[in-house]
């Protein structure tokens, strides 16, 4: 499909991209607005950023969100990679269809349904086993659930394109299957694992709906605090906070994308060299 694109197509493409980026750019610009009135430009200032540092509630919520995001994405990476290996390497096993369904369904399931069903599970579990108490643990468990899906999808496609013969060669040379997988295939899928960790991190950091249901009365994550502030209207310190988050997350994702692209290029190059 590599051909030149006619002008109207490109116009739509750039219009679409502009639509996606304009609101974020305007928001970042206004975060440097000295005037607290959101529609009047009162000169350049970084005062709203300074104010963030004194907002204890926000800082506490941010810390909780970061802890949750690190724990949940680490857990999801382990489970998601295992699921990807199971789905790609074992063609037939009992529960394969079930696993495929449970891996894909969270991607489209409306968050509000996942949120309420998981809360009801946790509440019922507490009645039966007096565990888990609502707060950090329940938020992490529910974040692992939806993040696992993203990890599996990413790692699965990588694993599918990985060359199986290398691993078989290692086994022929006497490596155990587990060792061959760890030493040969794991490095090949490592970029996918790292980038999916980053994606999970951002997804977890961003989640409002599921966290609101499962968090319980004590714990508030950053999006929950932001939502309750935003509900009251636009405020300049939220603009500053949003700019920081958008830039940080954008950098994370760009890094993940770069990692994937670089290893793709290197693999293509190696394949070319090997073919000679």
């Amino acid at each position, binding site marked *: 499909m590599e051909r030149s694109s006619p002008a109207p197509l490109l116009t739509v493409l750039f219009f679409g991209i502009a639509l996606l980026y304009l609101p974020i750019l305007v928001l970042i610009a206004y975060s440097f607005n000295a005037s607290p009135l959101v529609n009047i430009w009162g000169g350049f200032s970084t005062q709203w950023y300074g104010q963030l540092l004194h907002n204890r509630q926000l800082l506490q919520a941010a810390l909780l969100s970061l802890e949750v995001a690190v724990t949940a994405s680490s857990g999801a990476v382990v489970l998601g990679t295992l699921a990807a290996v199971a789905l790609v390497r074992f063609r037939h096993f009992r529960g394969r269809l079930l696993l495929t369904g449970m891996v894909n369904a969270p991607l*489209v399931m409306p968050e*509000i349904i996942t949120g309420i069903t998981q809360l009801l599970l946790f509440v019922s579990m507490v009645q039966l086993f007096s565990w888990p108490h609502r707060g950090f643990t329940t938020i992490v468990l529910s974040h692992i659930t939806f993040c696992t899906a993203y990890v599996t999808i990413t790692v699965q496609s990588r694993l599918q394109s990985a060359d199986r013969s290398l691993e078989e060669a290692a086994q022929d040379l006497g490596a155990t299957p587990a060792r061959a997988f760890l030493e040969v295939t794991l490095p090949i899928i490592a970029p996918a694992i790292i980038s999916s960790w980053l994606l999970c991190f951002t*997804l977890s950091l961003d989640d409002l709906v599921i966290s609101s249901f499962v968090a319980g009365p004590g714990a508030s994550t950053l999006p929950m605090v932001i939502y309750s502030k935003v509900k009251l209207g636009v405020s300049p310190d939220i603009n500053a906070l949003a700019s920081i988050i958008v830039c940080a997350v954008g950098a994370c994702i760009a890094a993940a994308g770069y990692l994937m692209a670089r290893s793709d290029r290197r693999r293509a190059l190696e394949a070319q060299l090997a073919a000679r």
Partner: protein
Amino acid sequence: MKTTWRPGRWLIILPPLLFLLIFFLIPFAFAFKISFAEAAPRVPPFTDVFSFTPDHGLQLSFSLGNYRYLLTDEVYGVAYLYSLRTAFFSTLICLALGYPMAYAIARRPKSQQALLLLIIMLPFWTSFLLRVYALEGIIRDNGFLNTVLLQLGLISHPLRIMRTTLAVYLGIIYSYLPFMVLPLFATLEKLDPTLLEAAADLGSTPRRAFLDITLPLSVPGMIAGSMLVFIPAVGEFVIPSLLGGPNQLMIGRVLWDEFFGNHDWPVASAVAIAFLLLLVGPIAIYQYYNVRQLES
């Protein structure tokens, strides 16, 4: 030589299988059960559906009241229909906008495609809540759009977009457009260019070749993308809550209010179960095309 790791196999399969079973699938059973309970002033705030009598007999107190309530109270029907309609039309608009975008990317040189896709996907990964908030900054009565239009003298009064259905549409399109572009690109990219060349050799105009070859072959991508937009859009909460007004009652919002406002967990469960039944069809379609695409 093909070796399978028979003994270790279940060590790999079981952890994700059990985890998702317990924390994704089984919760639906609990929601189903609790949808037959009644709200009660206790912790947790609902009655037991199953309980044991002192002589170890099982007692069932089973109420269909919540579902009857869904059918009789107008709010739910109105919200379901409004959600379906809004999601449907926003999906169509996303398709109309996303198709040319995906097509344009698919026709760029390979070296540019990865970058363009990253540009499209970047907003999707950055905070959803903050993007909706950013959009509010554009369409508010004293927001960016109105300020620019007023300055240019194109309008004399600010346009009223916030708290209207238009705002909800804009929010959904803005938030979900990347979901449409990605699967469309995936199918368009796989399209065999020789088919189009053959059509051209046989005297077909580019327009005919597009209609006869490209469009039919990209149907799976269109369906996958549409489902990825439609399903979450039906259950959308943040967008109608932040951008819509009291009339933009979507089912996600009703569920949220029932839960956090009225503290009626059983009714909220019943709303969720009824909503899920509504989504079984679209989710099955999505899974079907998704599995087919993965297998190929």
